[in-house]
């Protein structure tokens, strides 16, 4: 069960959930020493792409899943473009020794263990240069009225420790400082409790969230162009002039 949970990034289908018991340490332990940066230059796109893969997060809303339920790696050029045009980015780093899953050879330790063991590790500040990327979030905005938060993620081994909430709160703080209060977040059913706890509400002016999903299978028209978006083949509307005059 634990292995299955790890493979699925911590999210199991509901029928399995009653078999996994959260261990005591998983209930609100304190987060490790963190460094949250909102500087886009601190992000290495390749590390970020790996973070997306570890968290099994796809940039497509309807991703193609392989036989193990994993999503495809994010296209690195598109990721770069998305980062460039994101209004706010937040990346969370921590020292490698605090990441539970890292194997010893991955950890480039400073070798400074004096009296008291690893207190040096707790005291030396984390920087993007010496830290591991463990969390991320970004927001896209029109710099005036609205913003939308996307792609909030934390590696599975460091979840349930308040890191995700810190990411969202940092993004919110920046948006509010720039006078943007209309902030949306598109989230799946599993993410709703998380955003609810961060201060997001379900009912907003009773508006309905809708996404473009017209695909070749639902709408049969010949001679149509389709675009691939994850596992959906979206139909591109044709130029037509049948307006009622």
């Amino acid at each position, binding site marked *: 069960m634990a292995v299955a949970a790890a493979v699925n990034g911590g999210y199991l289908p509901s029928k399995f959930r009653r078999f996994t018991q959260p261990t005591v340490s998983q209930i609100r332990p304190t987060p490790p020493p963190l460094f949250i940066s909102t500087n886009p230059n601190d992000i*290495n796109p390749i590390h970020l792409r790996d973070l997306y893969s570890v968290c099994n997060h796809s940039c497509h809303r309807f991703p193609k899943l392989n036989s193990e339920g994993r999503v495809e790696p994010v296209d690195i050029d598109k990721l770069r473009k998305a980062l460039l045009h994101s209004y706010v980015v937040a990346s969370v780093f921590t020292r490698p020794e605090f990441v539970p899953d890292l194997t010893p050879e991955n950890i480039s330790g400073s070798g400074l263990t004096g009296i008291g063991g690893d207190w040096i590790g707790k005291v030396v500040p984390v920087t993007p*240069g010496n830290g591991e990327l463990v969390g991320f979030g*970004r927001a896209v905005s029109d710099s*005036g009225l609205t913003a939308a938060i996307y792609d909030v993620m934390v590696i599975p081994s460091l979840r349930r420790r308040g890191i995700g909430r810190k990411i969202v709160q940092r993004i919110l703080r920046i948006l*509010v400082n720039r006078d943007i209060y209309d902030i949306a977040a598109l989230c799946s059913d599993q993410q709703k409790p998380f955003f609810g706890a961060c201060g997001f509400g379900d009912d907003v002016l009773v508006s309905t969230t*809708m996404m*473009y999903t017209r695909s070749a299978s639902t709408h049969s028209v010949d001679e149509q162009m389709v675009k691939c978006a994850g596992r959906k083949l979206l139909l591109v509307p044709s130029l037509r002039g049948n*307006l009622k*005059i």
Partner: protein
Amino acid sequence: MQMQTLHLVSTSTVASSSSSLPTIVSLDCCRCQASNQLPFPNTNLGFLKVKRQPKVSNLKASFWDSIRSGFGKNNTIQVIDTPSSEEEEAEEPLPEEFVLVEKTQPDGTVEQIIFSSGGDVDVYDLQDLCDKVGWPRRPLSKLAAALKNSYIVATLHSRKFSSGEEGNGEKKLIGMARATSDHAFNATIWDVLVDPSYQGQGLGKVLIEKLIRTLLQRDIGNISLFADSKVVEFYRNLGFEPDPEGIKGMFWYPMY
């Protein structure tokens, strides 16, 4: 300890610099040193243009850039992670403008409805249009900023002129739709409106379909919007699905 060598090259073609030093300066900075001494304490650093570094070492350059960016008004420091920004410009949606509908009245006046995606919107016209459809007023400066920073702004104007006078005729804003995007994966459509006296003709459909077409052609696959209950059917007919696969939009409610 990590050493980083930044080569600061001034070029005479940097048009936006306010001052330029004709020398090439090489700067060694150690990333681990928290040094308070900057090498150029008194000069205007507006000329700086960092040579393109290979992508991995770009990250280390940011330390000095973040300090230096506080100095000098016209800062042309570019630490670029993307392959080139010239490609970026070419991929922006090219503004289009064409006549959608042209009808001639019995008395000889011609009315054209012109579609445009150039984003050339007068903020005051837009506010008038918002008033006509009954939307609450929003600060004009925010409206202007939002229009400027939207990925696509599609507009419909109506132009009336008497036959024979093609060139003249006043343009009136009768419809608009805009979309924000991160240029790669996600886009959200906001602020779709059509003048009430022009509604019912399929103009809103054209606006949305054009937006979708442009977005999909740029490979932006996640197109979302937040629809008022009265217009859910309108969007459903255009291919939008409410809450697909349980995806919902949540909005932030400040608790004060």
